[in-house]
């Protein structure tokens, strides 16, 4: 959630990428793919809901419009994650690229469905392509970051055969 908050905030308030690339990348699809790979169903839904609402609150999109595309991306990955080689870098890259391309297209489709008139054109297609590749690169980074944070902040699973600290174990016996 903190990651989603930070990404949405940076997308709106950090102008660096816009000045260097000419457009603002949207890495929220990558975040939802990562959530789909690592989190549970409820957490994926909450992540999609909050990220979508935050994104729309900082844009001219109708409120709630981004929730559905992000939810579809996260839920699709979550549903098929047992069939995906999710630890593989290539698989993560492909998933991120696909989500990075599909989510903006779904958002534009929904915008036109609700009667909004966004600024579109072939240059937007180029942006969509570059953004998809950026999302592809971002998924492995987010995935590793999530694993690292999980290792730092969560309690290790109980293993009855493993003593917590080998040095403290008193081994009794004749030797």
């Amino acid at each position: 959630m903190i990651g989603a908050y930070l990404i949405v905030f940076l997308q709106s308030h950090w102008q660096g990428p816009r000045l260097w690339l000419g457009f603002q990348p949207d890495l929220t699809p990558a975040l939802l793919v990562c959530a789909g790979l690592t989190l549970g169903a409820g957490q994926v839904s909450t992540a999609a809901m909050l990220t979508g609402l935050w994104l729309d609150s900082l844009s001219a999109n109708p409120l709630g419009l981004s929730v559905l595309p992000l939810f579809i991306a996260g839920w699709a990955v979550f549903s098929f994650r047992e069939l995906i080689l999710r630890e593989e870098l290539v698989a993560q890259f492909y998933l991120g690229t696909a989500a990075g391309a599909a989510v903006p297209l779904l958002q534009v489709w929904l915008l036109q469905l609700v009667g909004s008139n966004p600024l579109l054109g072939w240059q937007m297609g180029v942006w969509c392509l570059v953004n998809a590749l950026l999302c592809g690169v971002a998924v492995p980074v987010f995935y590793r970051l999530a694993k690292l944070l999980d290792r730092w902040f969560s309690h290790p699973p109980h293993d009855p055969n493993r003593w917590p600290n080998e040095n403290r174990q008193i081994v009794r016996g004749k030797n």
Partner: protein
Amino acid sequence: MLLTVFLLLVMPESVRARLKSAIGGLFLPAIGISTTSHAALQSLGQLGVSEPDPFPTNQALGQETKLRPTVHELQLDNARLAEENKRLREALEWEQRIPWETKLVRVVGRDSFNWWRRIKINLGTNKEVRLNQPVISVRGELVGRISEVGPLTSWVLLVGDPNCRFSALLKESRSQGGIVSPRQYSADPRVVELTYLPNDVEVRPGQAVVTSGLGGGFPKEIPVGLVVDSWISKDGLYTEARVKLHANLNQLETVRVLTKF
């Protein structure tokens, strides 16, 4: 999930705007932290610049000739300062000359999506910012108008956004037309279109475009941009032109809101 999205999309516009403003308000602490840390970093940078030593040692005096700037460097510095002085003087004169009351505001954010052109400013209803007030750059070029007002921040719809259309005229011939967003998305946000110009008007590249004041949205004679090229519309009924805006919309840091015009 689907029900929530459906309810959000069908709820009345006023309720949705209030909810949007409330959710957007969650980012105010982050904006505050970002602004404060930026200011702190700037002041730290200034701390790093030390005053020249009033009692230089012999060794330092020996090296002084190497450190002394050349005449060419001083000339460049002088030219830069003269240019800056001229620009500031022009801005000050312009401010004294205009009949409107303005408020200088800082740009704190932009629309997250590339298909909209909006910026967020750091004043809202707390400083009497109202809906549809015109926004101009520090040098007086048209930037857009206020489209959403929150308690502490507001959104400005930039010229070139599909929802920002207004009447403009060619300064030389006084022919009226309408400024609309470009037909296709362009990475350069400074290009817009001037349409519905009469066919009998000569439209040349370099002609100045200003606001016409029609409709009351913007005051008359605010500079908009310069004509790049023109063509007759497909149906042959009117002339259209591409206009390059004076204001660089990608690099706005401070803008002025016209509070009384």
